[in-house]
Structures are given as structure tokens and as C-alpha cells.
């Protein structure tokens, strides 16, 4: 019986050691990547940022006015639209990727654009994914603000459109959080960009697809290392936004 306990403990420690080694390898790999200023890594990170930022800008340009309009206007079917919008927040990325692929494929309706397997396709896929998020959440935020400001703004003579824009500006910090959430969702997804981008070396390879590739090659430390870099990047952006919000809060109340 004593032997069993010893063996079990030893096995346990062995597995712990393997985990630690893997994580240790991963951190070492991550550090080597960053410290070495690996050119390829820099390209991949830059492309990831470009694609996700473009997608967020596009999604905000569409989603924010949409959310604001639904928040302040009253029309038949409004409740149904709100429910649909909220549901679309949970669109599975891989399904979006498939749909956009079918749309942009040469055999599909927008095939003549020829943008399949390019960063543009990835931007479109990610934008489709996060527009509902931005629209639904900004709709909620602006509607809550509308409830508070409604009478006063109307009393001062603001028209619907002008009031909506005032509300957007006034809730800008909450909206910034929403935009960041959208960015996080875009930067983290791999299904859609893999399908419409094709993970082409040097052209459409982003952090998430690179991680998927390295995993499939069995290079787990490198994959984990890339993952750490990705998480670090997203955290950095969020920290930046938190600082901006803090400064602005102090200034504007």
C-alpha cells in the first residue's frame, strides 16, 4: 500500500512537472519571440491589429447609428428587432465565416470582387460578427440615457436626430467600453478568419490562425507563446482605454 501512495504521488508530481515545463517552455518561447523582435511575428501582430481595428471601425460606423436610432425611435416591430439584435450577438464565428465565404467565393454573388483569401475578406467577416454586439449594447446604453435625458432635451428643443447625437457623445465612455468589447471579440476569433482568409503565409496569417497552425504542427510551446503575446496585446489595449476613461471621468464627471 505504501508503494502505491509513493507511485501515485510521484506520477502526480511528474504530470505537474510536465505542465510546468510546457508553460515554462511557452513563456520562454513567448519571451524569445518578443525579445528577438522576430520580423515574421511583427508582421503577424501588425496584420492582426489592422484587420481587427478596421473591422471595429466598420462595425461601429454601422452599429452605433443603428443602435442609437432603435434607442430613440418608436416604430412597429421594434421589440422584435431588439430581440433579434440581441440574439445575433451570439452568432457562431465559424458560421459567419462560412456564410461570408459563400458570399465572396467566385461561385458566389460577390465573386467578381475577388477579395476571398485577402485581409479585406477578414475585415468583412469580423465586422459582420461584431456589428450586432455594438448595435445591441449601444442601443441599451443609449436607451437608458434617453430615459434620463428625454424630457430635458425635448424641453430645450432638441430634435430626435440631434438628441440622439448628443446622447451618443454624452455616453461616450460607456460606448468606448462597448467598442473595446467588440475589438476583443474580433481579435480573439479564429473560425471566420481562417475560412475567408485561408491563413496564407505573409498575407492573411493573423495571431489566432498562426496559433491554430502551430498547434496543428505540434509546436505547442510556440503556439502558447503566441497566445501569451495575443493576450498581452489585448490587455494592453484595455489598460490604455481604462486610463483614458479615468482621466476623462475626472475631467467631465
Amino acid at each position, binding site marked *: 500500500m505504501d508503494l502505491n501512495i509513493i507511485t501515485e504521488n510521484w506520477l502526480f508530481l511528474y504530470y505537474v512537472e510536465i505542465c510546468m515545463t510546457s508553460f515554462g517552455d511557452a513563456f520562454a518561447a513567448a519571451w524569445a519571440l518578443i525579445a528577438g523582435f522576430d520580423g515574421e511575428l511583427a508582421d503577424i501582430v501588425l496584420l492582426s491589429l489592422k484587420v481587427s481595428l478596421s473591422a471595429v471601425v466598420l462595425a461601429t460606423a454601422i452599429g452605433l447609428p443603428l443602435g442609437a436610432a432603435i434607442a430613440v425611435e418608436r416604430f412597429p416591430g421594434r421589440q422584435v428587432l431588439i430581440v433579434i439584435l440581441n440574439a445575433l450577438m451570439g452568432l457562431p464565428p465559424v458560421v459567419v465565416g462560412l456564410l461570408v465565404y459563400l458570399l465572396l467565393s467566385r461561385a458566389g454573388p460577390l465573386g467578381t470582387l*475577388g*477579395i476571398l483569401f485577402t485581409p479585406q475578406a477578414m475585415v468583412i467577416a469580423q465586422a459582420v460578427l461584431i456589428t450586432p454586439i455594438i448595435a445591441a449594447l449601444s442601443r441599451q446604453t443609449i436607451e437608458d440615457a434617453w430615459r434620463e435625458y428625454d424630457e430635458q432635451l425635448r424641453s430645450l428643443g432638441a430634435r430626435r436626430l440631434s438628441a440622439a447625437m448628443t446622447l451618443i457623445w454624452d455616453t461616450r465612455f460607456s460606448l468606448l467600453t462597448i467598442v473595446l468589447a467588440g475589438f476583443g471579440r474580433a481579435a480573439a476569433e479564429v473560425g471566420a478568419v481562417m475560412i475567408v482568409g*485561408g491563413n496564407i503565409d505573409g*498575407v492573411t496569417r493573423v495571431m489566432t490562425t498562426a496559433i491554430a497552425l502551430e498547434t496543428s504542427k*505540434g*509546436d505547442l510551446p510556440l503556439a502558447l507563446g503566441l497566445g501569451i503575446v495575443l493576450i498581452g496585446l489585448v490587455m494592453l489595449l484595455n489598460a490604455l482605454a481604462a486610463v483614458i476613461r479615468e482621466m476623462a471621468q475626472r475631467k467631465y464627471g
Partner: protein
Amino acid sequence: MGLIRTAALALAMAGVMQAATALAQQKSITVASTTSTENSGLFKHILPIFKAKYGIDVRVVAQGTGQALDTGRRGDADVVFVHDKEKEQVLVKEGAFVNRHDVMYNDFIVVGPKTDPARVGGSKDVIGSFRKIAAARAAFASRGDKSGTHAAELRLWKAAGVDPATGKGSWYRETGSGMGATLNTAAGMGAYALTDRGTWLSFKNKATLTISVEGDQRLFNQYGVMLVNPAKHAHVKKDLGQAFIDWLISADGQKAIADYKINGEQLFFPNAGK
């Protein structure tokens, strides 16, 4: 104010699209290929040589053979480079592709756990080994994704007279994934798997897996390249694509393929026109 912002954005997007089209003017072709060629690192080795000579950017989309052939059929690629000769020839007959050529071969191997529950280690008889694995109900990880490797695997089961579907859910595990992911699963489960040597050599998570069966003639794996039929898809870059195909089967391209080695071991054996 919001209107101005939206207008500015539209202009910016238009600018991006314009730049993108300009970039596209730079000579490039899209090649749909398999995960085995991509993961092995072959393209990273030979494409720079091709680009230096011809100035053409080759963009490889690595999918399973089935998906790559479909991509070619839809016209989303210019050239297709896969390893399922039977299917390739059928599709050429159907008119989806033209100008098919053999390019290179490598071989498949069966990898399995060091513990070797089916006792097939060191064997040169893949059909017999498959029978033993089925009989022992030893865990087997299949790609299950209509890839060239998967097609080869199914042919071997057929030749062995075994229907692996009977083991579905117990010893026969279909991952529906690429070669690397399947090997990861096999390593994690201690299962046998059929893989191409190229992927195996460059695979970094071998864990307790080792080569069980190799050297059987029936494990021969032929790669072929073909052009997407420009008659079916007018936009196909047939000149640039043909240039790539011609280079692959030329002495220069064949040498580049033969020169690719991992740890001194050659992965792919050129056999164009042989």
C-alpha cells in the same frame, strides 16, 4: 457631425479597397494545397526560389485535399496541388481542371504508441497491420475529413477487408481535422494513425508515438498539380499559374523539392514525367 464622420469613413474604406486592388496587380497566384505540404515546411523552402526566378507571389491556402479541390472547382484558386490522383483525374475528365502533372511522392507511415497494443511494430505489411489493429480493437485516430490521407486510409481498410465504421465510437476515432490535429489527438490518446512522412518529420508533439509500419509499396503517396480550367473561370491567372506548374515539373523545381530536408532526411521525392 455623424454624417461627416460616416462620409469620411466611406472615403477611407474606398481608399483601402483601391490600395488593395493596386496590391493585387502585383503578380500573384492562389494555390490551394494540402495541410501536409504546408505543415511540412516544403512551401517555405521552394516558393522563395520560384519568386526569385519569376517574381510571382505564390499564395498558398492550405486546406484538406477535398476542400482544396472544391476551392479549385469554384474558381477561388488558380492552381491546385494535392495528393489524391484518382479524384484529380476524375475532375480533369469532368473539365474542372486542366494540365494535370505528377510532381512528387512521399510515403505514408503508420505511427502508434510505443506500447504497441496491436503488435505491429517494425512490420512492412500495412494491410496485415490494419487487420491486426482492427482485431485488437486498438485505438486508431482517423482524419475523417475527405483529405488525400483519409482517402488513402480508407483504401487500405478496404484492401484489408475491414469496415472501420463498425469501430466508430469505440476504437476507431474520426477527428475530422487536419493531419497535425489528428496526430495531436493520437498522441494524447495513445492511438495509431496513418500520416505522411513529411508531416511526421516536422511534427513537434510526438509524445509517446513512434513509427510502427513503413516501407510498404502500398503506402506510396503521389502528389499532383493542375490548373483550374480557365474555360470555366475566366478570371483564372492561367499564364502565371501555368508558369508555376511548369517550374514545379522542371529540373529546377524538382531539384528544389529534393533539396528540402529536415534533419538531413528528405521528405518528398520528385517524380514528374517519370
